[in-house]
């Protein structure tokens, strides 16, 4: 039987992720594809904890912990250091949360992308600062509750469109992906691995703790995010060539996605309708690009 996802396990059990953590699933797939000839750098985020305390590690590849806003440039520095020593084949991967990517780290990412440094930047997006206890980020969707956007002042404003920002740098490869579609995710990781230059992969990674959802629904929610079009799955090559990877024939209503999550529970009907309209409008814009 031909396997679509490599059998090898590089990440080990015994890590510190919560039950149902989408981010830990994402790392497992990423390491299956990138393999042992890889170096990871991780800024402050849940994954800085998930890997385990000193002197333990769960990832089985060299991992350099770094400051919150520096993942991209840390990877650039690591890549340059390996290069000058002749270690040119090693994959260098920056692995960061949405806060470290959309917010505080955006300057360093933009710099590394503009220089087209040969690294893969992967953001696991759980749509808030989870490590510090669920505060809003610019990846938090409109309407969501977080501890800094309490129910009375829930998050107003659209989620930042990071993949478009990255593709505007005309980087060779930018993609969105989901832990609910591991084959698609692995294909993208494989593609990124084989492209020279700056690669950006945005993975939606549900967080039961922050989304107030049942850990058993992590994959279901990641799938519903795609099926409702709130998180479409596609790739952009060289900033221009758009490919839709998961076609959604009949999108599901957003309520299907919201109903399994406590963070949207407070939303009134009109607000949900507003969100539905924005999703449909965004989708129309996107479809024209394929």
């Amino acid at each position, binding site marked *: 039987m031909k396997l679509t996802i490599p059998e090898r396990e590089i990440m080990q059990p015994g890590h510190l992720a919560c039950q149902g953590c989408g981010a830990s699933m994402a790392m497992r797939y990423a390491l299956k594809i990138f393999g042992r000839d890889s170096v990871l750098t991780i800024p402050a985020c849940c994954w800085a904890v998930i890997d385990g305390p*000193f002197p333990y590690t769960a990832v089985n590849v060299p991992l350099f912990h770094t400051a919150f806003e520096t993942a991209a440039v840390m990877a650039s520095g690591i890549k340059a*250091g390996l290069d000058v020593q002749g270690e040119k084949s090693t994959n260098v991967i920056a692995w960061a949360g949405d806060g470290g990517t959309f917010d505080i780290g955006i300057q360093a990412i933009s710099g590394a992308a503009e220089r087209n440094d040969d690294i893969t930047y992967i953001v696991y997006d759980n749509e808030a600062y989870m490590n510090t206890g669920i505060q809003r980020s610019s990846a938090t969707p409109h309407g969501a509750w977080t501890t800094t956007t309490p129910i009375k002042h829930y998050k107003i404003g659209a989620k930042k469109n990071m993949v478009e920002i990255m593709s505007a740098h005309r980087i060779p490869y930018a993609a969105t992906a989901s832990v609910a579609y591991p084959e698609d995710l692995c294909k993208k990781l494989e593609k990124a691995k084989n492209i020279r230059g700056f690669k950006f992969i945005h993975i939606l990674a549900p967080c039961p703790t922050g989304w107030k959802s049942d850990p058993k629904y992590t994959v279901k929610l990641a799938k519903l995010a795609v099926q409702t079009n709130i998180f479409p799955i596609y790739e952009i090559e060289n900033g221009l060539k758009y490919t839709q990877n998961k076609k959604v024939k009949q999108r599901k209503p957003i309520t299907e996605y919201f109903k399994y999550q406590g963070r949207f529970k407070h939303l009134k009907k009109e607000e949900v309708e507003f969100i539905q309209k924005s999703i449909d409008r965004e989708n129309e814009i996107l479809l024209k690009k394929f």
Partner: protein
Amino acid sequence: MKKTMIGNHAASWGAQLSRVQVIAAYPITPQTLIVEKLSEIVADGELDAKFIKVESEHSAMSACIGASATGARAYTATSAQGLALMHEMLHWAALARLPIVMTNVNRAMAPGWSIWADQNDSLSQRDTGMMHIFASSSQDILDSTIISYKVSEQVLLPTLISFDAFFLSHTMEVVDMPPITDVDKFLPPYNPEYKLDVNNPRSFGALTSEEHYYEFRYKMQNAMDDAVGLIKKEGREFEKLTGRYYDLVHSYKCEDADLIFVTSGTIAETTNVAVDELRKDGKKVGNLKIRVIRPYPKQDILKAVKNCSKIAVIDRNISCGYHGIFAQELKGALYNESDIPVWGYLAGIGGRDVKVDDIKEIADETFKSKKPVDMIMKGVKI
């Protein structure tokens, strides 16, 4: 080979002679000429290095950290606002025990915007765990860069080499460039025991509980203590090659002095001239230049000042709310060990020129004064 060059270019050539492998830097006046020259040196193939043209100083230091963690020799240079922006990563470099050597051209912090000499920028980084040198000549800049890699790579601590804006950065001096074959004999390639190595996967800098963190600091402190001896030892090795010796402090005519100036940077060089003139007038003065402030050369200082009856510290910096930083440190060193009184003087803040006459005035004032003063703000217009 002797060459005429500005202080900034002495830093560039120091990096070139040290065969740095990764450079990451961002321009800022008055440092800019260092990285422009290095860009040329790399582009002309005179140095086999990767130059990452980063988008900020924070990223410059981060890239150096990443490169150094793989075992590459890394270099950056900055000034004032740039150094302040790096601050978080200076701690990171030191706690990650990475032997990065960097240059800082001492420039006043804004606002108001100033590009002129002032030590507050680098002294604000005093407690990052970096070794910290104040160079006082272009030759010192070039030689310190080479020697610092040798020391840093043994104690696994980064080094910050600072020198005064314009008085050094843009002033031409004759610099003797050692042949690279000599430097190669002195400075072997960097080959750390622990690095990012796919054949030996480890995590660096992970979550650390109170069970371990204290011990990291203990080890850093030991490394700093070791550095005192190593700076001297490698200084002597370097002297064998070049005839030039660099110590943590340099004392000039201190042995029989009644009054000793304690100085740093270019003010130290001016003070040597003032000492000669004052001696001609029969005044027994000496000058103790503090070249290295971290590790703090307490024993060397105590030895150098032990016979004098008064000390006058000249600070081109201020810790507002207290006083000059070299004066604070010196008084801390003397306490419990000696009762020589200390006069603290502020001079040259924000690039104001400090002339031989100013130093002679300080000597007169200190000789006349009966009671030591924490801080006398020389020349302040009020």
